[in-house]
């Protein structure tokens, strides 16, 4: 018995093929590009699902949402999303997104990229966008390695992990991404794994509603390169590890949430605070300086 007839029998409803195939995520994706290039067991698609759910629940007008990605496996997300999207040069999604935001302050700009793109090649841009509190939402899919180029050591690779350029184990310390974001001044910092789909979707929703620099780290498995070299099994095995070793600690000090190789993962919403955004600061400063002669920029972001 085929799957479809089994399904049709189960619910006793006459199913049209169109109806049966309409995945609720599909309207948000460029259908002609599916199936995507991500490996079996890769967690990036799951983060996209969570993002779509968050976007759906946020109630934003999709015409006013733009998504920007850099290079890498996660950099493909902008190409698959049926939004105004931008696939930029390596490490530069945040400068492009900043430009988009300042040219059209009505937009909700989302930066969706990987750990190598955002923190290795584009590290500086991340720090300064967070320092300025640009009104962006940054989603970093952290798979601990450079997935697209062959599994080289990344700044997020934990000490002790084996990767293609560290065949005898990594001896460098890794970045603690929420700590960096917190120290640089992000207003919302959360970390979830691909196992925590509902929480990740909620974090995406909250991040989309939040004004200011939002940072969400989504830990994802890389079964083809990272897990295979470290003999950690496939994607599901990694998700089971996320399930067993993750501890939810909302409001935990970001100092203490560093990752170790196959060690405990502290997840949760670490930071949620208010800070003046860059545009608001600029408007306030120039209004104070020039008085009535100054015309405020980006009206919808200034509370009248």
């Amino acid at each position: 018995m085929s799957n479809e007839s089994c399904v049709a029998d189960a619910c006793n409803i006459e199913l049209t093929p169109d109806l049966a195939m309409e995945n609720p995520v599909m309207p948000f994706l460029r259908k002609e590009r599916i199936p995507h290039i991500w490996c079996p067991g890769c967690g990036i698609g799951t983060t996209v699902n969570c993002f779509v759910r968050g976007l759906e629940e946020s109630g934003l007008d999709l015409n006013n949402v733009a998504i920007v990605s850099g290079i890498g496996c996660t950099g493909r997300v902008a190409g698959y999303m049926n939004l105004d999207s931008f696939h930029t040069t390596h490490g530069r999604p945040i400068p492009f997104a900043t430009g988009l935001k300042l040219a059209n302050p009505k937009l909700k700009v989302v930066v969706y990229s990987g750990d190598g793109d955002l923190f290795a090649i584009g590290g500086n841009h991340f720090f300064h966008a967070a320092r300025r509190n640009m009104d962006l939402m940054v989603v970093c899919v952290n798979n601990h390695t450079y997935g697209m180029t062959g599994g080289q050591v990344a700044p997020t690779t934990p000490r002790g992990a084996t990767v293609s350029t560290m065949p005898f184990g990594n001896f460098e310390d890794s970045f603690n991404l929420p700590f960096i974001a917190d120290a640089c001044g992000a207003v919302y910092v959360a970390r979830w794994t691909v196992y925590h789909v509902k929480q990740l979707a909620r974090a995406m929703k909250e991040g989309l509603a939040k004004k200011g620099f939002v940072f969400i780290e989504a830990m994802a498995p890389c079964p083809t390169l990272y897990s295979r070299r470290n003999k950690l099994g496939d994607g599901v095995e990694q998700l089971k590890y996320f399930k067993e070793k993750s501890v939810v600690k909302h409001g935990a000090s970001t100092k203490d949430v560093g990752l170790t190789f196959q060690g405990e993962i502290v997840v949760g919403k670490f930071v949620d605070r208010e800070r003046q955004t860059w545009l608001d600061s600029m408007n306030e400063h120039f209004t104070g300086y020039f008085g009535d002669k100054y015309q405020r920029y980006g009206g919808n972001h200034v509370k009248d």
Partner: protein
Amino acid sequence: MAAVTPAKQARGTVFVRTEVCKGCSYCIDFCPSKCIEFSKDFNAKGYHFPVLTRPEDCSGCDLCGVYCPDFAIFGVRLKDLEKRIQAQRAEDKAA
């Protein structure tokens, strides 16, 4: 007197686009009611795709749909499905 257990009614169902499935088994391992299993058949790419083996247990929670990295599977509650079908029929009539 033996207790009479009423036949369990399905509350939801899943739909699978078998041709885009890559057989990662996320939906199978994380289904809360454990009603999905690998099929014995292959799809065109040679992966075993999931199939609803215990439809009466499915609650239509759509957790499989959120987990699926390939956008291949999704769950739907039967009452929502009926609404969707009616909405679509109304649309078809209007068109």
